[in-house]
């Protein structure tokens, strides 16, 4: 993971093919770490690391089921993506506002 990546950025979370594969698998329903590891060419500790990052990004939820922990997609995942886009727009609009509010309209000829 890049140290400059902001924690909880859903786009960074999905920038990794293994994490995208996990999200796609969870699209078919909740699974445990071992279920996921069995379906992927990576180890259980690696799956756990990826899940932690997906959780931080608000894309995945963890629920205890007896002694097992089941991971599933967060219904608000799309909302998280939209929140991120809102932040991006805010960055652009913030600069726009600064310029618009601190310049004067051209004088009519």
């Amino acid at each position: 993971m890049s140290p400059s990546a902001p924690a909880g950025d859903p786009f960074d979370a999905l920038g990794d093919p293994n994490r995208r594969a996990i999200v796609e698998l969870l699209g078919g329903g909740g699974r445990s770490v071992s279920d996921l590891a069995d379906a992927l060419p990576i180890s259980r500790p690696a799956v756990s690391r990826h899940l932690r990052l997906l959780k931080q990004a608000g894309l995945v939820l963890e629920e205890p089921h007896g002694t097992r922990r089941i991971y599933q997609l967060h219904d608000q995942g799309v909302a998280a993506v939209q929140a991120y886009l809102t932040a991006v727009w805010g960055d652009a609009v913030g600069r726009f506002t600064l310029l618009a509010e601190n310049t004067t309209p051209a004088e009519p000829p």
Partner: protein
Amino acid sequence: MIEPLRLTYQLRCPADHAFEVWTTRIGAWWPKGHSASGDPGTVVVLETRLGGRIFERATDGAEIDWGVVTQWSPPRRLGYTWHIGRDPMQATEVELTFVDLGEGRSRLDIVQTGWERLGADGPMWREANHGGWAALVPSFRAAATIPLAD
């Protein structure tokens, strides 16, 4: 259909001026680094007419299309397609409305629609198949000129 992204901003300037700055001075305020090329010397150009291109021009002169103006009603409304160097078939649509509130104030409403067009898996969105959207997110990233600069 995927819910449009709706944003509203209050501005301390008249709407006419806001429209002018948005359209003719986009090269001055568009955040550096929010470009397809990543070239810090990129210039952003918006051709102020219906059918006009929105594009970036890198320092080597190479141009990358971002979209096309689809609504041109100065100084109140502007619409354009938005794909930022990706397949135009995957363009989202942005509509900007500048509302004058008098006393030197205005409001900017932004509505971005057409998310379902992002990627061949679009219909999966509508069916709320959560597995489908993961494949689309990289397109969002490009479509929204991510990464965040600064």
